[in-house]
């Protein structure tokens, strides 16, 4: 590298408890980023990593163990922009949503036995512990969104991320409506878009893997699905699987007396 060149912005790509789906998407697109950034840390993809300050830290996974939390606080302290990538980091995903029904200690015992030394926390998204600058959900994240978000942050602009529902993307593809024509429990109306309505385009119901859209009408969704004959409890479980937080269900539980 030429000595007089302006140093490139530094990025770190880190993982807590997740499936590494986001890391794979970032790795697949690393060639596009490399002319514009220096990757100071990406343990999933490179063996030589440094722990110095970075301009942008992309963090995937939920905080599920004490060492996740320690790592997250360290990342926060050294990063100008902390970007939560993927549903796990933004909403807590299945380990935060579907598993919330069970006590974390019970699950630990069931899986690892009574005398396990493994330490666990209730799975939570990043913003349960530290301020998060940008939340880019996905399961995994969408490449186009990731690159456009990164481009904005490199300019120190707040990126645009759609929080409109999947229904919009689905209608624009002119899919037959899964809810209306197939009576399947499609969660498109309450789920954030960005996937391009992938599942409904294949004739399957959206199961909400990107997390809630902006101001999701959970109670209306539950009403419509129960009218279609789906069991109320099953509907609530379905709505909560990917980490939709409790406060989105407040009206539902207060009006119907249903335990949300």
């Amino acid at each position, binding site marked *: 590298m030429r000595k007089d060149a302006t140093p490139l912005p530094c990025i770190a790509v880190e993982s807590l408890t997740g499936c590494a789906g986001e890391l794979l998407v970032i790795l697949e697109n690393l060639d596009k980023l490399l002319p514009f950034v220096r990757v100071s840390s990406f343990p999933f993809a490179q063996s030589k990593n440094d722990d110095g300050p970075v301009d942008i830290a992309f963090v995937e996974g939920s905080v599920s163990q004490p060492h996740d939390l320690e790592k997250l606080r360290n990342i926060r302290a050294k990063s100008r922009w902390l970007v939560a990538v993927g549903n796990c980091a933004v909403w807590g995903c299945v380990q935060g949503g579907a598993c919330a029904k069970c006590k974390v200690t019970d699950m630990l015992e069931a899986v690892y036995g009574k005398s396990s030394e493994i330490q666990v926390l209730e799975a939570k998204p990043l913003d349960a512990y530290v301020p998060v600058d940008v939340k880019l959900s996905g399961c995994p994240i969408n490449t186009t969104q990731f690159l456009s978000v990164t481009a904005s942050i490199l300019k120190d602009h707040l990126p*645009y991320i759609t929080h409109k529902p999947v229904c919009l993307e689905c209608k624009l593809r002119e899919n037959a409506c899964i809810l209306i024509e197939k009576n399947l429990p499609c969660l498109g109306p309450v789920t954030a878009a960005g996937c391009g309505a992938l599942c409904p385009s294949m004739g399957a119901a959206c199961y909400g893997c990107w997390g809630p859209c902006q101001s999701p009408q959970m109670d209306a969704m539950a009403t419509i699905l129960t009218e279609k004959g789906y069991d109320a409890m099953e509907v609530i479980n379905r709505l909560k699987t990917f980490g939709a937080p409790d406060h989105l269900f407040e009206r539902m539980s207060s009006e119907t007396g249903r335990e949300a």
Partner: protein
Amino acid sequence: MSQSLLLKKTDFSIFFQTLKSLGKFFAPVRVSEQSFSFKEIETEAQIAWEALRTILPPKKFFYPPSETLVEYSGNEIREVKPEMNFQVLFGVHPCDLAGLGIMDTIFEAGPADTHYLQRRKESLIIGLSCMPDKYCFCKSMGTSCATKGYDIFLTDLGDAFFVQVETPRGIESLENCRQIFTSVSETDKDNYKDYWERRDKAFTNGFEPDNLRATMDMEWNNEIWDELGKRCLSCGNCTPVCPTCYCFDLVDIASLNGDSGSRVREWDSCQFVGFAQVAGDYNFRPTPVDRLKFWYRHKLHGFDDPYGFKTCVGCGRCTVSCPAGIDDLVDVVKKLQGQRESRNDSSEAGGENESQIK
């Protein structure tokens, strides 16, 4: 300057081939048991003649769901002109022709939308007659008979089409197959009148439109808005499917090099909570009730004063596209007009809502 001709259905293939040679040919195609979509077709057999309403209306051809308007690089800004190929849009029913007419008025109003207008100019529109189903209510909206917006209109007379050629472009497009058209006889004219009379009597859905304006004004605080709002998913399905919804969002997409990017226009929906969110996180339509009520008013009354028409054309798309069954415009208007026997009334008693919509 309308010119009337007769086209035997046995000669339709020649007509189809002639039109197809003019450019891309789009017609309704079946995409599922209940749904249709305007798609580019290659053969006559792909045309779904039975299609009444497509998922998206023909506005998508002139006002695409996503469109790059400008690209910038350094200090230079370049307008991205629409890439145009001449297109033939076949099988457009009267409600959709009325919808295009309304969109024309909106997009022509200054400052005119040159992209939309250019696409309109580069298109040949072939209208087609239709018999209403239980969701059609164009008759109530005064849009059941096409008076403009098409180059050629076909009325189905059984074994022949009664062809009305309305524009110079329409006449031009028939030049290469002029031999298949004959002049209309008195019997053809009688059959034509008979068809439209039968059609007029075939409507089973609709409402008394005379007091619509007053109803929309007076019933702003009617309790049914709250009932509908509780069911509303804010999914926004009602707006992209509407032939006259034109709201959009502008998004700037930066390139990684930090020096260039583009500004993209995308269809938006007033049903999304972010639509009315403004600086300071203030939202002037924060709840589904606010948004739904606004949309209804916009469709049934909002354009009365500035333009003297309503922006609903009675195509029934919102009714069949609403997963919550609350965009049954006819049902809602009847309720607002005080006709309380409407079907949703049963929901309070039994909680079973199977009867709505489908």
